[in-house]
Structure formats: C-alpha cells, structure tokens
C-alpha cells in the first residue's frame, strides 16, 4: 500500500494548467459584461422571431435556442459579482455603438418570407463570433485564477457549437435556389461588415489584439 504521508507534488504530472493569463479581474469583468449583453440580445431576438417564422421545425428550434442563450446570459450575470462588479447592470453593456447597430440590423427582418435572413444573421454571423470570442477567452485567461469563467465557457461553447450546427443545417435545408444563395450571402456580408466595425462580441481584441496585451501578468508562476 502506498505511504499516505509521502510528499507529493501539488500538481500531478498530467496537470499542465498555468497561472499566467491575459486578463486581470477588471478586463475579465468587462468582457463578461459584453458577453451577457450580447447573449441577452440574442435570446430576445430568437424569442421574438418564433411567431414570425412559418416553418414549424425552425419555430421549435428557435424556442429551444432562445432558452440556451438566456441561460448563458444568466451564467454571465452570476459571474459578474464574483469579478468584483456588485452592480451587474453597470457592465451589462454592448462593446460599442457598432455592436448596437449590428444587433439592430440583425433583428430587422420580420416578414415570414425572411427566415433565411433571420437564420443567417444568427448562425452565420453572430454565433460564429461568440464561438471565436469565447474560445479566445478560454485559451488565454488564467487556467487557475479564472477557472470559474473557463467552466462556464466550456458549457456555453458546447451549446454554441450544437446550435451553430442546428442553424447551419436549417439554412442549408431552406436554400433551394441560386437566388437564395445570393440572398443569404448578401445578408451575411452586410452583417459581417457591421460586426467587423464592432470588432467582435467584446469589441476590438475579442479574439486578440494586433498590439500585445498589457493588462495582466504574462509570465512567471507556471507549475
């Protein structure tokens, strides 16, 4: 039997987590506030669109996805006070004005003939940018100090990938003519340009900045 009093390394040999991370508490909270705002806008839009789409399968998926994004915003809402933001509403903000314009443009289609546009905005522009911003955050924040954010990111990313696949397959099944391919592409390009202007879900730097980050420790303390 192994000696229980024999000294062991605090980190097992297979545990390669690192202390350094790109974000300090303040920066992490800012990003989380942006995520919460964007997830809120997404679940509100999906809920509103349910009544406007005639396709029964799409209607049911939108209702299901509506809840998933509401739950994501709830996770971020609960994380904010843990990041020293005792008034979560203060940081529940869009990254910038361009992000507000993006959401306005994305939620513009309402007519029953515009299901393609509705889905393209969400599943070909908004959700891929969520996946990008969340992946960047997960891969660059401190694996030890910011573990609660990473845990939420992992749950949320699983949902985002599942929903993206659902949405993309719905779009592919709805597009039946070359004209509809053009419609989808034109709408994606229009929204993609607005998202470019916004710089991503958390603004410029959502998936890393051209200039090196200076906000947090980037060296030392590794296991």
């Amino acid at each position, binding site marked *: 039997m192994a000696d229980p009093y024999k000294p062991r390394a605090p980190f097992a040999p297979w545990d390669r987590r690192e202390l350094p991370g790109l974000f300090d508490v303040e920066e992490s909270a800012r990003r989380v506030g942006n995520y919460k705002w964007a997830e809120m806008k997404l679940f509100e*839009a999906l*809920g509103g669109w349910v009544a*406007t789409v005639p396709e*029964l399968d799409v209607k049911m998926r939108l209702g299901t996805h509506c809840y998933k994004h509401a739950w994501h915003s709830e996770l971020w809402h609960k994380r904010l006070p843990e990041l020293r933001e005792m008034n979560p509403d203060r940081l*529940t903000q869009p990254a910038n004005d361009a992000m507000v314009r993006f959401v306005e443009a994305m939620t513009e289609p*309402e007519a029953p003939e515009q299901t393609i546009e509705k889905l393209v905005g969400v599943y070909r522009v908004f959700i891929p940018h969520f996946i990008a911003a969340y992946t960047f955050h997960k891969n660059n924040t401190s694996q030890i100090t910011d573990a609660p954010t990473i845990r939420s990111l992992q749950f949320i990313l699983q949902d985002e990938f599942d929903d993206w696949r659902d949405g993309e397959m719905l779009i592919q099944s709805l597009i039946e003519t070359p004209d509809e391919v053009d419609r989808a592409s034109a709408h994606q390009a229009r929204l993609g340009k607005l998202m470019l202007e916004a710089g991503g879900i958390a603004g410029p730097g959502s998936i890393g900045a051209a200039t090196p980050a200076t906000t947090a420790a980037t060296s030392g303390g590794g296991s």
Partner: protein
Amino acid sequence: MRKFFPVEELARDSRFNQVTMKDRMADPRSALGKDEPRQKSNRLVPSRPDASAAARGLMHGIFVGEIQALEGAGRTCHDFRTAGDSARRAQDDAHGDDSFVDAVPFALKLDMARQAWDEARHVEISVKLSDWMGGEIGEFAENTVLFQAACSSDPILRLAGVNRALEGLAIDVFTTMKEFGDLAGDPYLEFCEDWMLADEVTHVKMGSDWLRRVTEHDPDRRKQALEFQSVVDKLFSYGGTRSDSQESPIGLARRFRELAGFTADEVEDIAEVSLAALDERKVAVAKMQAAAAGVELLATT
C-alpha cells in the same frame, strides 16, 4: 422587428387553418353544439362513442395551443425592455418608443425563455402524439385566442392571462388526457401527458410567483391583472368545455392547481365561472335548437 406582434399575422405553413373563437363555437362538432340528444356525460372517456375523434381533436387543440404558448413566451422575452438595460432604453428613446408600461426584471425574462423551451418540447411531443393517435397537422382548425391573451402591453397582465389562466387550463386538459390514456390502456399517451403536466404546473407557479412579486407594492396593478385573468378564465370556460360537471369534456384539476399556487378560493372562483359558462351555453344551445326547429317547421309547411 416590431415590439408587439398582431395575432392575425402569426406565421404558419399552408397546412394550418386559423379561426376565431366565434367560428369555433359555431362549429357543430363543438362541445355542446350538436342538436342530437346528448349522453349524460360529455367527459372525454374511452367509452364515449366519438372518443377517438374527440381525443384526436383535443390533441390537435393542444398542439396548436402549445405553438401559441411558445410564441407568447418568446414575445415576452422580446417585447419588454429588461430592467437595467440602459442601451435598450437609449434605443427606445431614440425611436420615441414609449409603447410599453414597464421594464421587466431580468429573472422574469429568463423564466419566459425557459418556458419557450418547454413549450417547444410540448409542440414536439404533441406532433408525435397526434401522429400516434392517427391525427394530422391541420386536420382541425386553429383557434388563435390563446395568443391574444399574450398580446397585452403590460407584462404582468400577460403573466396573469397566459401563465395563470391559460396554463391553468392546460393543467385541466393534460389531467383529462392523462386519465384518458390510463383508461384507454395507452401508457404512451399517459406518460407524455404526465411530463407535460409537470411543466405546466411549473409555468403556472412561475406566473403566480411573479404576479405576487412584481405587484407587491402596487395593489391596483395586481387587481387589474387578476381581473384580466378572470376574463381569460371565463373566455376559456366558454361553452362549458371545462368544469367540474360531467357535462364538460374537460374536468377541473383541483389538486394540480393547488400545487401550482392557486388558493382554494381561487379554485372555487374558477369552478363557479366554469359552471356559469356551461349553463350559459346550454341556454344558448336550447335557443339555437328552438330556432332551427322553427325553420324546419316553416320549410315543411
């Protein structure tokens, strides 16, 4: 996207046929609308000669009701500004939009999103159950009155009308269908109805809790919401479709209503309204039958 969505624009594919409450009650297949002699009990039980068609009809009604409940919950997520959402407030101000009475708590919206998911599952379940029972989408008309109750510009009135009145009715309907499945020896139907019933009890409780919390210091608003609920309850008791009487196809599920947060007095009020509606309908049917007999007499002379 507009903030409030009109019931006549609810998007449907070509299989659906929408009708008003008035159309539905004029349908000779309606609960008490037939002029042939009625049996003693109209309760939906397998021994009824028309049990199969009536159960399919009720299941289709559940199916379209779930679609509208999904749409209503989704619209409540969208139509009202979340308390503390200053960016949305700025947008509303910029658009000169003051069409809403209030911002709603974030947690209320989360509950509505959760309800949207639940209702989406109920649509899925209803489609599969309809198919199981030999029904088809569009076989019966869709009465859109449920969504109308979800069109109030006051979120608390929506909760009173939808979560307490309509979801309360859903508790009664699912209890009846669950019992029907049990009596008919259909465990598949009974199993699914029991799961949906559990969700509906949760939705009614959500409505009861939010009504109490949001109107805690606003007795006038609470009174207004409860009055609206009463109107919707009466509307859905129209024709005596649901009551304690065996003459109604659907019974009043008293125990599950209490679990969902209805007080004993509230359940009694609904029971009285439902019985009154049944009596009103019987008088109306008697008048229609007398008028029809008069026309028949004229035609033969």
